[in-house]
């Protein structure tokens, strides 16, 4: 096979690494190569400079959502590690949560706001996943625009206004017996934002409810830890969906019952956490008192003899409330932006 690496490539600013997924953009002599690696397969999408029609950079709230998430985890970790009465295990777990959260907060702030970048050609609209930060996207697009300009030339000053106001152009002459070429199919719109997080948060709620029920029934510390760990895993997935939803990458699913679930999630989490805060935290901080009053109040059957478990469960409830309120807020804004089903343009 002829060596496919014969064409020299120059890397453009930007790039993204998210677990097993990596994305970057490289520039050849006459085309752009978008490289995406998923696990062990590397895929390429090429765009000739002569075919690129426009590039859209749109700022989104992904960075803000990350900031909120990092702050939440930092506060939780600090709440676990700092109280004088906290035992060693709780302190270690709190530090393991707080330190990465602090690093993430700083790195997120340094990298700046997030954006979504789309390359448009006559037949496609490609999301440039490597350019998700506004600063690097602008740098990369500036370099790319210069290269495209050398191939396509400069845009005449009045051409955009003239094109925008242009009426119907001359149609190609109709040929008997042949149908005219169909117009190019426009890329399906991305759909209303933040809907995937609604579905993911609802799923997290359902499993958390099931996990709580299991915890009530099991009454053994290792199994309760396991189910609560499952809740945390789901909250991690929920956070991922939240971030991706804030970036506009969502599926067009909106179910009215999620409103009720979000309401329950928010109310239940808030009541559980603040009741525990009022009834239990002073005792936890000072080292005395019972650890389970608030849990008994809610469920009326379960009693934990471990202060750590009670604190852990309280923090899970705090996350429930956080995601519940954020989900409601996002859903409200999504509905205001034009909610509804997504249909491809025809």
């Amino acid at each position, binding site marked *: 096979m002829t060596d496919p690496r014969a064409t020299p490539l120059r890397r453009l600013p930007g790039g993204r690494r998210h677990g097993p997924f990596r994305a970057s953009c490289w520039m050849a002599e006459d085309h752009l190569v978008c490289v995406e690696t998923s696990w*062990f*397969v590397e895929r390429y999408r090429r765009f000739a400079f002569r075919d690129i029609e426009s590039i859209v950079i749109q700022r989104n709230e992904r960075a803000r959502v990350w900031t909120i998430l990092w702050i939440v985890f930092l506060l939780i970790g600090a709440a676990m590690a700092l109280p004088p009465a906290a035992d060693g295990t709780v302190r270690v777990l709190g530090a393991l949560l707080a330190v990465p959260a602090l690093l993430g907060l700083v790195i997120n702030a340094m990298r700046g706001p997030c954006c979504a970048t789309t390359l448009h050609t006559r037949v496609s609209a490609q999301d440039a996943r490597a350019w998700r930060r506004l600063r690097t996207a602008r740098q990369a697009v500036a370099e790319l625009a210069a290269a495209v300009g050398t191939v396509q030339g400069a845009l005449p000053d009045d051409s955009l206004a003239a094109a925008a106001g242009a009426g119907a152009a001359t149609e190609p002459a109709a040929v008997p017996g042949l149908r005219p070429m169909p117009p190019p199919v426009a890329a399906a719109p991305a759909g209303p934002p933040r809907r995937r997080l609604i579905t993911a948060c609802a799923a997290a709620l359902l499993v958390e409810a099931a996990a709580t029920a299991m915890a009530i029934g099991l009454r053994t510390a290792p199994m309760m830890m396991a189910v609560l760990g499952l809740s945390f895993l789901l909250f991690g997935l929920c956070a991922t969906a939240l971030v991706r939803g804030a970036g506009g990458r969502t599926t067009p699913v909106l179910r009215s019952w999620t409103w009720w679930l979000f309401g329950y999630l928010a109310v239940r989490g808030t009541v559980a956490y603040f009741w525990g805060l009022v009834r239990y935290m002073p005792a936890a901080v000072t080292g005395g008192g019972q650890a389970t009053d608030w849990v008994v109040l809610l469920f009326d059957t379960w009693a934990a003899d471990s202060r750590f478990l009670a604190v852990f469960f309280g923090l899970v409830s705090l996350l429930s409330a956080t995601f519940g309120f954020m989900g409601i807020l996002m859903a409200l804004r999504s509905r205001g932006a034009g909610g509804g089903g997504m249909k491809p343009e025809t």
Partner: protein
Amino acid sequence: MAPPAPACPSCGTALPVAAGAPGGSFPCPGCGAPTELFVFPALLRPPANSTPAVASLPGDATCYHHPDRVAVVACACCGRFLCGLCDLDLGDRHVCATCLHAEHEDGGPAGRRVSRFVQYDSLALALATIPVLTVAFWFMSCLAAPAAVFLAVRFWRRPMSLLPRTRFRFLLAMLIALATIVGWIAILYVAVDGMLAGGTEPGGGAR
């Protein structure tokens, strides 16, 4: 017909083309998100193949695949006449779909533009390291390590990427995998030796 306007990535609303001044930001007409639009002359260019395939008249040269269509070009590889539908414009030459597919299979000029690579070096490294690092799956290293060595040997010369890439991953995978294999051999040797020693002790044997 006005040129197709780019759409907002969030709400799908068509963006105002006239706002395509570089460096300028404007709110999306649909969702209000801050948007920057960079427009190039290709947007104003008419479609390349706007003329559909034309029906043939007696005496016209016709397409090899569509006898009722006028031929507009000959394939640069096989020489067959092609209509507007069959013509594949590669920029510097025109080919038919059959020749393009054949070139792709043979790795010719048209096939040089591969769309994906399987990164066997990363796969070998994962097979060599993950079972060793994860306590729960350490027992799978007895299968994963030989598989890693096989991948490293089998695909050593194959290109792994369009981008600059060394064979460091293959080397590391082989080192770790070979060390794992040696470890397993040692474990088996100790286990068998212990069983044999326990069977030959006086007063030992089956109870």
